[in-house]
């Protein structure tokens, strides 16, 4: 997404790796050229060739303009290039999960509501109708919640300059409050508490897995 929003380059913290000694001989004990040339391993063609080391292949997420997220404590389960990656992966996973759970619920609801002795086409239609009624509803709600949560989480991270569990729980509470903000204070509080709990559970799971 960096083509759309542009991205501030994170300061490179990694130091230049120290140049390794790659000469095949000890430079202090050189007396003349023929001495060097006769040393075994000094002129290793497989290392001196301009295309040496290409057999290692290209590593994903290891290119110069695609630096990984370097905010302190923000390294998650999968490598991330920054807030837009977190947003996409987080929202996508939660949305898909909501779609799946809602779809499964709709499936069993449809199975229970099949009209007695109906043709097979009607049976399939009943089940599909129930799936498409429940799945997208739950998926959309969960997806919107995850989207809000991820945006707020990344914003708090950027302000504080680091990421920890407190950020996640706070972002969850704010996201839950916004989600129910048109229903009054009591639902807002309940939804904020639920979302904070969910964010805390996710943090615990993440630290357990990594």
């Amino acid at each position, binding site marked *: 997404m960096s083509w759309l929003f542009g991205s501030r380059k994170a300061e490179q913290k990694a130091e230049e790796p120290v140049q390794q000694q790659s000469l095949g001989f000890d430079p202090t004990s050189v007396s003349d050229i023929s001495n060097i040339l006769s040393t075994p391993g000094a002129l290793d063609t497989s290392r001196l060739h301009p295309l040496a080391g290409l057999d290692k292949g290209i590593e994903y997420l290891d290119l110069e303009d695609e630096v990984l997220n370097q905010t302190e404590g923000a390294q998650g389960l999968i490598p991330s290039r920054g807030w837009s990656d977190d947003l996409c992966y987080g929202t996508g996973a939660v949305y*898909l999960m909501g779609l799946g759970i809602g779809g499964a619920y709709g499936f069993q609801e449809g199975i229970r509501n099949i009209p007695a002795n109906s043709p097979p086409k009607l049976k399939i239609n009943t089940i599909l109708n129930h799936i498409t009624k429940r799945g997208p509803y739950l998926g*959309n709600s969960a*997806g*919107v919640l995850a989207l809000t949560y991820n945006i707020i989480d990344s914003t708090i991270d950027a302000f504080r300059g680091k990421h920890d569990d407190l950020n996640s729980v706070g972002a969850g509470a704010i996201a839950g409050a916004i989600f129910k903000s048109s229903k009054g204070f009591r639902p807002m509080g309940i939804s904020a508490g639920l979302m904070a709990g969910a964010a805390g559970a996710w943090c615990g799971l993440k630290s357990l897995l990594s």
Partner: protein
Amino acid sequence: MSSDHSRDPCPIVILNDFGGAFSMGVIGGSIWHGIKGFRNSPYGERRIGMLSAIKARAPVVGGNFGVWGGLFSTFDCSVKAVRKREDPWNAIIAGFFTGGALAFRGGKKHTLQSAIMCSILLGVFEGVGLMFQKYSAWQNKPQAMAYPDQPQPMA
């Protein structure tokens, strides 16, 4: 055409595309339906009308976008895995399957029509992408150095 290294490797990129398309749909849908709800509400209730329009419709737009993008990405990865190559045909074939899958409940004719329309659309996208690629390659073409106007006199 070499593979695009600003994107993640295949199975996991589906998740990324799902989320990206869904977010795009929700944000775009909020703007679209916010303006629409604001303009279509009576005076005095414009802000509340905007809010309820966003609440009712933006997640649905997001869901439609997300399902489209996720299905497309899934088919794209599958086609890549089967064909073992990366070219514009991948997107066109994936578009065909996506359009067909989304219109599957409308009957055979509707499915086929939608699949063909979707693959044509994707074909146009890929064509425009190739055009841009060619144009930028042409802009960065290697330049021969100019000869000096007069040969330097030998000293």
